[in-house]
């Protein structure tokens, strides 16, 4: 009978993805069986077994009911079994599969594949000889899992090698040495994981890897004079030390001159297996001595040198000290590769994070290069010219930032990026140690010790690529760098409810958004103000002028009176989309665009000609038309009240064709998100509502609050009713004046303030709408 093992089952059990037969009923091979005595009850015998999925091995415990299977020989090493009942459990920090019920598919079979202990590679011998258990029960005492493999035999055999350099032995091709190197290189893999990505690696390895120097037998100490200590353990009080670390960066040899004389200096950065990093500085003769020896990427054993506080201005490494080498220092290259020491260490921050980071912070960032500009030459303050090139980097935070490359980066990495971008691909760029500057918004600039990695081989890069392929391409990004947002014009489409939900306008800078909404209502009694027409430079003063009573108008600012004043719009509008309604103010230009008539003409229609009919006609044409409003949303303070105020910057009559396309795009995005079975967030339900608004129908899945919102959306033509409904309705009693929950608008402290401009915006005038009741559109005019 041909049976195949369930591939990947052990991996899933190890990381906790599969814990019972409900998750998976795997077919595995028993590679070893061992009888053990329970400590508390020696009379109860149990069998421990090693399970293999052909790739990895895992410890299992046989339920006592199944002991007879072993005794009668049905279950033996080599048996292929189906775990019909099992529980993956963590016992004493280790994951063990307890199997109360199994089905023997094949009594005896050759060991399939070359399984190695879970998560470790390259132990070929595990398969040949089986794994022998360490029965001394030392697993629970903090010794790593890998130590359980043949510790008795390997201690003697491998300790000289392990102890000698305190590191791994290079992987050799002969099976025997491979087996020896397994424990340490196994550590290496784990340790690297640990340094690169701690959260995901913890579940695999519940016990944190002990430092390098721990668990070395006495043999090791005897023949290895330098005690290798982790970089992070270095301090000015450390005596004689040796560190083993990789050079991650090397600065050029620099000449300097200061009042004390001239000299030269160079420095390099080190990273060790525990993720400890430190800068090493050498001066003068020492610099000459070591400069050529140090090669980026190589491993070195470095001992002796003095530790001094790091100069944080120049040294951004995560270490409070730096090493200064002197004549007594030694640097010895390690020719044996140690995978435990990563080549680079990143502390990536998302571009979104950069927004809130301080000027001059050093940051590691990774993103997709969406565009790159050619190199330009900048003349520095000191008169020297330097090349500069900038690119746009975006990531999953939905933000993008300008990365400015200086000097040699422009031609080396810059040129490569340029040609990649020119050929239509969007490369991933990782910036190690870029400096945040606040030139034109926020940008990231390269500094001397920056490093750029194009399409690097990291998990993060892979994730980004996938994201970009999936959705990143089409997702609009908000740039943190002003220059780009100015010219690139990323049009951020939002719904009205998002203004409140996302607390737009409450940050330092205003938010610029576009909403597609219908004008529900206009406030007419003060649709314009009398403005000063006196030219101030190339534009009129436009400040409010007051009637002197003698037919002239006085401007406080210009300190002059004029015979005829200007009329400028200050239109208060209530606009609504499928999610919510809000009040916005449109000034002169936007107002004219909306009304289709100048403020002055409209003023004359109403107040001079008193042509109510025509006035109403104009108004009626405007109400219930749909526009794309570009809004500036900003929180402002009026008499100690914080209010989010929205000003119409630009209006465009809705282009239905283009708008439909936008909606289709949004639906598409929503569907791909649904397909990825991510929970529908509020934004998602807004998109649902988008569909509703087009008259297609209702999908019926919506949370209560948005149902409420939608309700009044349906009553759109009766704004009075909608106002009432909104404030009174539903379980969520929130004030429609100030937006706070806990009181209704009638009791809102904000609503009793004197009516000034900001007040309208907040919505006390929404109260007015409510008072005249739900009526026909015509009543919007008639009530005034």
């Amino acid at each position: 009978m041909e049976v195949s093992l369930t591939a990947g089952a052990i991996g899933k059990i190890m990381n906790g993805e599969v814990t019972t037969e409900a998750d998976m009923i795997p077919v595995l091979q028993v590679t070893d069986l061992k009888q053990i005595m329970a400590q508390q009850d020696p009379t109860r015998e149990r069998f421990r077994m090693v399970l293999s999925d052909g790739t990895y091995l895992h410890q299992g415990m046989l339920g006592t009911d199944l002991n007879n299977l072993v005794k009668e020989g049905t279950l033996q090493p080599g048996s292929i079994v189906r775990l019909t009942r099992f529980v993956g459990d963590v016992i004493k920090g280790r994951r063990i599969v307890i199997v109360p019920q199994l089905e023997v598919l094949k009594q005896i079979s050759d060991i399939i594949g070359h399984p190695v202990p879970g998560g470790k590679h390259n132990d070929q011998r595990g398969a040949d000889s089986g794994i022998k258990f360490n029965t001394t029960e030392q697993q629970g005492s903090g010794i790593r899992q890998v130590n359980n493999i043949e510790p008795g035999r390997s201690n003697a055999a491998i300790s000289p090698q392990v102890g000698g350099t305190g590191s791994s032995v290079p992987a050799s091709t002969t099976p025997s040495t491979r087996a020896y190197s397994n424990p340490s290189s196994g550590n290496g893999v784990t340790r690297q994981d640990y340094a690169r990505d701690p959260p995901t690696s913890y579940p695999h390895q519940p016990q944190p890897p002990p430092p390098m120097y721990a668990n070395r037998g006495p043999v090791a100490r005897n023949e290895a004079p330098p005690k290798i200590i982790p970089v992070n353990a270095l301090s000015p009080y450390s005596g004689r030390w040796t560190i083993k670390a990789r050079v991650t960066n090397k600065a050029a040899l620099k000449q300097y001159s200061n009042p004390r004389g001239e000299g030269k200096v160079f420095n390099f950065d080190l990273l060790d297996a525990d993720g400890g990093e430190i800068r090493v500085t050498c001066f003068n003769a020492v610099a000459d001595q070591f400069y050529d020896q140090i090669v980026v990427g190589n491993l070195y054993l470095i001992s002796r040198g003095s530790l001094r506080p790091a100069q944080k201005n120049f040294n951004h490494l995560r270490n409070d000290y730096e090493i200064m080498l002197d004549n007594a220092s030694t640097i010895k290259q390690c020719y044996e590769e140690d995978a435990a020491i990563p080549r680079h260490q990143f502390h990536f921050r998302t571009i979104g994070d950069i927004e809130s980071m301080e000027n001059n912070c050093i940051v590691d960032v990774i993103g997709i290069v969406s565009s790159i500009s050619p190199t330009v030459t900048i003349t520095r303050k000191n008169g020297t010219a330097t090349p500069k090139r900038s690119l746009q980097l975006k990531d999953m935070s939905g933000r993008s930032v300008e990365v400015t490359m200086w000097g040699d980066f422009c031609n080396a990495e810059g040129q490569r990026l340029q040609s990649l971008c020119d050929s239509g691909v969007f490369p991933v760029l990782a910036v190690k140690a870029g400096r945040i500057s606040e030139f034109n918004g926020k940008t990231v600039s390269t500094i001397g010790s920056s490093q750029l990695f194009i399409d690097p081989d990291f998990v993060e890069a892979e994730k980004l690529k996938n994201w970009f392929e999936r959705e990143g391409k089409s997702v609009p990004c908000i740039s943190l760098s002003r220059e780009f947002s100015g010219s690139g014009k990323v049009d951020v489409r939002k719904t009205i409810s998002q203004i409140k939900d996302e607390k737009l306008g409450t940050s330092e800078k205003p938010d610029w958004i576009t909403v597609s909404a219908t004008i529900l209502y206009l406030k007419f009694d003060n649709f314009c103000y009398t403005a000063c027409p006196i030219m101030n430079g190339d534009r009129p003063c436009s400040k409010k002028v007051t009637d002197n009573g003698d037919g002239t108008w006085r401007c406080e600012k210009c300190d002059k009176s004029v015979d005829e004043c200007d009329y400028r719009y200050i239109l208060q509008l209530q606009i609504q989309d499928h999610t919510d309604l809000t009040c916005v103010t449109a000034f002169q230009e936007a107002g004219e665009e909306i009304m289709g008539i100048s403020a002055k003409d409209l003023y004359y229609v109403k107040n001079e000609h008193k042509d109510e009919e025509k006035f109403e006609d104009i108004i009626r044409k405007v109400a219930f038309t749909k526009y794309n409003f570009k809004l500036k949303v900003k929180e402002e303070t009026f008499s100690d009240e914080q209010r989010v105020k929205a000003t119409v910057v630009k209006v465009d009559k809705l282009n239905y064709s283009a708008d439909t396309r936008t909606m289709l795009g949004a639906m598409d995005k929503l569907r791909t998100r649904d397909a990825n079975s991510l929970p529908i967030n509020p934004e998602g339900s807004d998109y649902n509502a988008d569909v509703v608004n087009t008259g297609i129908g209702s999908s019926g899945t919506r949370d209560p609050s948005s149902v409420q919102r939608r309700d009044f959306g349906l009553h759109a033509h009766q704004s009075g009713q909608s106002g009432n409904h909104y404030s009174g309705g539903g379980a969520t009693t929130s004030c429609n004046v100030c937006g706070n929950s806990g009181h209704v608008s009638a009791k809102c402290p904000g609503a009793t303030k004197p009516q000034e401009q900001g007040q309208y915006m907040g919505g006390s005038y929404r109260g007015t709408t409510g008072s005249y009741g739900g009526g026909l559109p015509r009543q919007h005019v008639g009530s005034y």
Partner: protein
Amino acid sequence: MDTSSPAAFVNGALLRRYIGQKVRAVIQVIRSDVGSVIGKSTDDQQIVVKGSPQPPLTTYLEVIGIAETDNTIRAEVWTNFGDSFDVQNYNELCKLANGEFRHLFI
């Protein structure tokens, strides 16, 4: 023949699903014959619409009628849709209305 159900949004490819049923489609007129109009569906397929519309016809027409074959509609209602029409959006609508969001449509 079931004619009680409302007209389904179709493009050329979807027409065959509704043979014998009422459909609506927007077509771009290629030419008018006696008793029929040859047009292009929103997904670029040639469709014959039987019946005699009231001239003049605009570039785009909406027809509502019974799907007879996978490329013929016997039209009952003809509506001029003007000379500029976003064919692509309409085609997407047809796909959505017959696909994932079918339950939203009668």
